[in-house]
């Protein structure tokens, strides 16, 4: 009787080993396929690419016609990937790894809407151009759990997918990096900002600027206001910590005798009463010393709760509050009567990277807002742009080949003008610079609060241009 069950187990183990061996054997077969297929299509495609980029969304951009078209894909023999090269016909799949459940679900949801919108737009355009293929977004939920992210990555990889948008957190990117590099699968994260992941030559790209750019923007705004002491309330994750580090460094450089105090909060805390109390203590202390104090809030939508709690303290209403792209344009803040009122009272000002005034942005923003029922966050736009850049690069290469796409992705991104503005990638494959629009919460009519664009931080000159009136 015991022997029988051992038999079962052995059978399963044998199965696993068998599968693994099968993999060894199988790996060799798939390498060089479909070389001929691709060549035919390449030529037609390149033509379209040139027209497309201009045809994008409107007048704003005049894009150079010098696409790296020259790399006509005739040398496709060296396909190293394990999956069969699919060529560009039929349905070309792009994986999307997003947190649809868990802490960051609301970001995941907006990003999903953006991916689907991009799919729709890209396909309409491809159809108009008579392209022989369409793109298909295959969306998976990572639950913000790296273990699950690995499983979903594998599922997508097993479907032969070589290009994936996401995942959103740096922890997940770390967990997938080894897989991406060794299996040569391209990851484009819309939101991972950890400086640690700034690694040249890897298969990870990041379409959001790293903290090294936003930090100075935030610092500049505070310096412009004459702030001497910054008391920061910071979300204790890779994003918040990275951002406060760079903001602090930039601020202390601009204001040599300034002070930056940091209070961290665990986003998994049910509430932040304790942290707000500490914030109040510190602000009171420095105001008592006669310093000009500013509060820097580096958070996501927990800001609403922080405001609700801060609203109980009079001192906290007497200083200006500064934010980041995590809170910029959050509809939750202006829709909440208490938080909205508080934010307007403390002139809560937030930088967000975007060529926010472009028609293209407005158009996508409008449609996404309709779809979601709220204003989408920046990362959603990064997903939208990433989908386009991958498609364009794919067409330029003319083959479903991640190695080649990786090579030309930076140039493709450069000539593409996205909803997030110009996309310049640095040597590590991360967004190199961006201008920052400054948004402030304003009471437009009694009880009604809105986000108003009050200025622009120019990266090139490290200066702020205020829109008056």
């Amino acid at each position, binding site marked *: 009787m015991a022997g029988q069950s051992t038999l079962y187990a052995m059978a399963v183990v044998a199965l696993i080993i068998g599968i693994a061996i099968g993999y060894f054997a199988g790996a060799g077969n798939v390498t060089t396929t479909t070389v001929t297929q691709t060549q035919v299509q390449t030529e037609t495609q390149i033509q379209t690419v040139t027209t497309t980029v201009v045809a994008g969304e409107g007048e704003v951009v005049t894009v150079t016609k010098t696409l790296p078209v020259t790399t006509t894909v005739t040398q496709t023999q060296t396909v190293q990937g394990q999956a069969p090269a699919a060529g560009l016909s039929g349905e070309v799949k792009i994986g999307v790894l997003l947190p649809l*459940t*868990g*802490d960051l*679900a*609301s970001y995941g*949801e907006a990003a999903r809407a953006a991916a689907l919108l991009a799919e729709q737009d890209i396909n309409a355009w491809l159809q108009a151009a008579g392209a022989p293929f369409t793109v298909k977004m295959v969306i998976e939920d990572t639950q913000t759990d790296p273990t699950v992210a690995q499983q979903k990555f594998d599922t997508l990889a097993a479907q032969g997918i070589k290009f994936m948008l996401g995942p959103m957190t740096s922890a997940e990117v770390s967990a997938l990096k080894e897989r991406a590099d060794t299996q040569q699968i391209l990851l484009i994260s819309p939101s991972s900002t950890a400086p640690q992941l700034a690694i040249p030559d890897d298969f990870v790209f990041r379409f959001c600027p790293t903290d090294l750019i936003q930090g100075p923007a935030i610092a500049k705004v505070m310096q412009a206001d004459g702030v001497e002491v910054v008391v920061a309330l910071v979300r*204790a994750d890779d994003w918040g910590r990275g951002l406060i580090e760079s903001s602090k460094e930039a601020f202390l450089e601009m204001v040599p005798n300034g002070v930056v*105090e*940091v*209070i*961290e*909060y*665990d986003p*998994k*805390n*049910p*509430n*932040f*009463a*304790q*942290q707000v*109390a*500490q914030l*109040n*203590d*510190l602000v009171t202390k420095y105001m008592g010393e006669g310093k000009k104090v500013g509060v820097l809030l580096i958070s996501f*939508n*927990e800001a*609403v*709760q922080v405001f*609700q*709690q801060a609203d*109980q*303290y009079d001192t906290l209403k007497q200083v200006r509050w500064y934010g980041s792209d995590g809170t910029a344009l959050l*509809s*939750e803040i202006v*829709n*909440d*009567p*208490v*938080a909205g009122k508080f934010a307007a009272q403390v002139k809560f000002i937030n930088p967000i990277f975007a060529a926010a005034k472009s028609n293209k942005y407005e158009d996508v923003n409008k449609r996404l807002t309709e779809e*979601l*029922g*709220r204003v989408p966050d920046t990362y959603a736009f990064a997903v939208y742009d990433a989908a386009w850049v991958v498609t364009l690069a794919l067409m330029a290469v003319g083959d479903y080949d991640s190695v080649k796409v990786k090579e030309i992705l930076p140039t493709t991104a450069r000539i593409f003008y996205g909803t997030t503005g110009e996309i310049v990638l640095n040597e590590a494959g991360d967004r190199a610079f961006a201008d920052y629009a400054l948004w402030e919460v304003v009471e437009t009519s009694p009880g009604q609060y809105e986000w108003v664009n009050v200025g622009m931080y120019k990266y090139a000159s490290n200066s702020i241009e205020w829109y008056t009136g």
Partner: protein
Amino acid sequence: MVLNVQLFLDTMAYASVLGLLSMSLTLTYIVSRVPNFAHATFAAIGSYMVLIVVWLLGIYKTGPSWGVYYASLPLSFIVVGAVALLQYLIVLRPLAKKGISIDGLMIATLGIDIILVGLLNISADFLEEIFQQSPDKDLRKLVTYPRSGYLSSYEPTIMGVTASSILGPLLLVVSTVGFYLFLTRTKFGTAMRAAIENPQLAETLGINVNLVYSISWFIAGGLAGIAGVIMVMTTKLNPTMGWLLIVSVFAGSIVGGLGSLFWGAVGGLLIGFLEQFGVYYTQIILGALTGETVSLGNYRQVFSLGAIVVMLLVAPQGLASLNWGKILSRLGLRR
């Protein structure tokens, strides 16, 4: 070191939520002998009732209103009570009858927990859909609420203090005292005590033990639902909001000893204060010692776990087992 009144008020709301949850968790534990991992998610269901009330009563248009509490307290009590009762009748009782071990039952409650969270997620999907499709512009603003809602904007204030800071402790006291009176002064309460203390004996005395247990589960669920109403005023509405609390709730029950409702409530309160006040004043003390700003908020759980460890190692039966008369007289507080 002065008392931070605002923090005290905020903590009162949070701590009484933990008190209510630890107390009701203790009740289910006394009845079924299984720590119910779904208990904090019960509270989350109660929290969703507040959103539904805000929506259906049109409170999203009018702003802060007592209607939030009038309507959602009874609604949560009944709905969550029913959920708890169903869990007992459909899952736990049949499994216990089949002789499944406590470990097995615990895993079953974990299973229920993820099912409930799944259902909450589906409900959130539907609510979002409804809000988004609505022609009412104000209602469309609620579209983010099912996944990250801050409903405290709709609660009224009493003399400038948010209602939950007063209502929370009040509800905790009322339900603790109410329970005490119910158990000691009513016939049904006596039957309940008998059924819980000695089921076999109670059975022979003609007490319907099953009915008593079912009612206990209903009440425990109902109390968790009420806790959820207060809870949503102090935190973000989210399908997994219960998961953030479950360790603290268990900590409260363990500190209370898992055997007495009163001490369960006390345990929950203590943990609530520890996580807010304990952290806050530790920071101040450490700050004064080191001369730097110390920020320990991330280690909230370390404080509640510390409480569990100390309690289990010093007095495994919890606060309830301590000889308070002796302790008080030693401290010189009582002769």
